[in-house]
């Protein structure tokens, strides 16, 4: 009791003496302090860097996705199949002259010359044919003498009447050649006899000599047999030269389009910004099969398709740790200088699956999931302050106490952790198309489950946390066959936050480097 009292007196004596004790600092202390002030600018808060990184990633993915979808929209929206199935619209004023859509579709689907094109009136009786032919001849004469009217005024609004500058080189050459060449026109043979054809009637009545100037020549590369089903084009009368000049390119365009249609079974598109009619003239009737935009690009691609891959990788890695000071509040003051950081290491194995999509010529994005497990040992040092080691033993598995003054010994304890994570990334491919090598940067959000021994008796405690990680890698891809690739990816992964966020004094931040290898399958 007395000893306790003495102790208190002893303590209070020292407290009174030194509580407000002042000393005199060295004379040059302020100069030294001034020299150090301002050398190290305060680090920006970590969360700001985080938000900046996340914002950049979101922006990159957003712009990438937008640019990926935009160019492909026109091609995707109107496929050749869709164009083929457009319902033809008749140009004739008389609704009775409308060609049935089934017949046009049948013609488009069967370009073979051996199959005769059924005339709209082919099924009529012979007696009725004469009447129809007469009426057709009369209407054709009226049609050719009158000024051309747009088939659809609303549709033609704001559109130039002519079709200038058709960019298709073959077509332009053909057009020029046709204008100067006057071949002898041989009307194609259809199911009717020549005497029944209304063209002959026109020639006989009006100006038969000019018939040849408006005739068509089979296009190069397309035989008569190919063009025959669609070459039943109407020759224009020379009585209206202006009309001829205006209509000729359109008529030839139509002939060329339909010739290609007959040969390839696709609608011909031109790289122009105007809209073009796809017409067919059967007898004296002009039928509108449909329209197509000249802006619609050819179906042939300029570049190979942007590939997408599904990849599976095995991920052995080597992890090493730097024990960093915790920067929270007053604990910040307890940090260690950089040269005293603790470094430890372990080995891990993992696996991942990723989907990757090329978005530009040289860029691709990916998303995936990964799992890895790590096993290793950590250095622990326990402190012994008393003579009797059983009295005080301080073991701090999370604190990474090392080299204390009263060091009694070191202990290596088993340590393990598992990581589940999702990963998004972007990759730059410096090579040409289909060169899938490239530098990648990806951000992962990982769930880390640690099993940490808490004492020398190996009592383990499970700790969980969510940690972001950044991976930098370079991928080497070796194609095997048309769709498969072997891949090897040396990489380094940085954990952006501490594994031991709950610990007050120290935190640990692992770095992994490894060589991932696996296979990838090209989906398209």
């Amino acid at each position: 009791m007395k000893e306790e009292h003495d102790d208190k007196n002893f303590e209070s004596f020292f407290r009174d003496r030194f509580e407000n004790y002042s000393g005199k600092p060295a004379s040059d202390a302020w100069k030294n302090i001034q020299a150090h002030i301002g050398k190290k600018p305060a680090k920006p808060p970590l969360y700001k860097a985080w938000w900046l990184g996340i914002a950049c990633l979101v922006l990159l993915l957003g712009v990438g996705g937008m640019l990926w979808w935009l160019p492909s929209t026109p091609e995707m929206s109107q496929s050749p199949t869709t164009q083929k199935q457009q319902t033809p619209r008749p140009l004739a004023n008389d609704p009775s002259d409308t060609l049935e859509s089934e017949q046009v579709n049948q013609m488009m689907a069967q370009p073979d010359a051996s199959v005769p094109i059924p005339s709209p009136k082919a099924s009529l009786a012979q007696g009725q044919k004469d009447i129809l032919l007469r009426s057709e001849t009369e209407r054709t004469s009226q049609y050719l003498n009158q000024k051309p009217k747009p088939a659809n005024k609303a549709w033609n609004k704001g559109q130039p009447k002519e079709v200038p500058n058709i960019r298709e080189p073959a077509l332009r050459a053909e057009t020029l050649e046709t204008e100067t060449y006057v071949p002898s026109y041989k009307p194609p043979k259809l199911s009717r006899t020549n005497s029944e054809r209304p063209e002959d009637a026109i020639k006989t009545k009006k100006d038969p000599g000019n018939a040849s100037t408006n005739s068509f020549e089979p296009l190069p590369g397309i035989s008569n047999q190919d063009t025959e089903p669609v070459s039943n084009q109407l020759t224009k009368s020379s009585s209206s030269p202006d009309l001829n000049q205006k209509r000729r390119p359109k008529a030839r365009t139509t002939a060329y389009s339909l010739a290609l249609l007959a040969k390839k079974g696709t609608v011909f598109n031109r790289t122009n910004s105007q809209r073009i009619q796809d017409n067919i003239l059967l007898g004296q009737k002009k039928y509108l099969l449909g329209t197509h935009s000249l802006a619609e690009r050819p179906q042939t691609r300029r570049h190979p398709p942007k590939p997408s891959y599904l990849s599976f990788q095995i991920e052995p890695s080597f992890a090493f740790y730097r024990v960093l000071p915790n920067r929270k509040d007053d604990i910040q003051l307890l940090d260690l200088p950089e040269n005293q950081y603790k470094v430890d290491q372990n080995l891990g194995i993992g696996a991942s699956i990723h989907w990757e999509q090329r978005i530009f010529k040289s860029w691709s994005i990916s998303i995936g999931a990964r799992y890895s497990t790590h096993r290793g040992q950590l250095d622990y040092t326990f402190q012994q302050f008393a003579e009797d080691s059983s009295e005080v033993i301080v073991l701090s598995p999370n604190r990474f106490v090392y080299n204390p003054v009263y060091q009694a010994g070191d202990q290596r304890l088993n340590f393990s952790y598992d990581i589940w994570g999702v990963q998004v990334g972007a990759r730059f491919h410096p090579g040409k198309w289909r060169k899938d090598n490239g530098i990648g940067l990806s951000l992962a959000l990982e769930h880390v489950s640690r099993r940490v021994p808490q004492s020398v008796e190996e009592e383990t405690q499970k700790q969980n946390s969510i940690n972001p990680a950044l991976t930098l890698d370079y991928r080497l891809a070796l194609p095997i066959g048309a769709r498969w690739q072997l891949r090897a990816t040396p990489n380094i992964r940085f954990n952006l936050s501490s594994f031991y966020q709950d610990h007050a004094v120290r935190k640990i931040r692992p770095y992994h480097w490894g060589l991932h290898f696996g296979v990838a399958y090209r989906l398209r």
Partner: protein
Amino acid sequence: MNNQKLVKGCKAHKPEAQRILYERFSGPLMGICLRYGRSREDAEDIFQEAFIRIFQQIDQLKEPQALGAWLRRLTVNTAINHYRKNKRLREYMPDELDLENHRNMSQGPEILDQLDNEALLSLINKLPDGYRMIFNLYVIEGYSHKEIAEVMKTNENSSKSQLYKAKKALKKMISERNLIEDERRA
């Protein structure tokens, strides 16, 4: 200039405010450093490091009214950190002290009054580093054993044990010093 303006000026990195803060608080903070350091050179190192930290981290000070306490705490923490950084280089010497052979201080409390602050400080500085740290933290700063265990990364029993031994060592050194003084007088 009151503390509020002083802190505001220091946060704005104004040299004048920094200078005033240094002049106003350098004495008490140097006193703390002298207690925690093994020698004057050691104390000056802690003092310089503490002031650098003060100016770097003054943005974290939210209540300027508590400037004095904040500076004191930061200096103590700097001293602890300094101790932790340099403990490798220091030899362990608690066994050199024969803690049993000292005169009971209760027999002569007036002995303590005869010692001035510098003499007492020199005795404190002679304590082993761990003892000195815990003695200062507990006796003068008023930390509890739990707090000491936390900042020193030890446990409460260890803190108690070291405090006990520190006091014993101090008493022994004071007794020996008195014996020497008595012999001189004789």
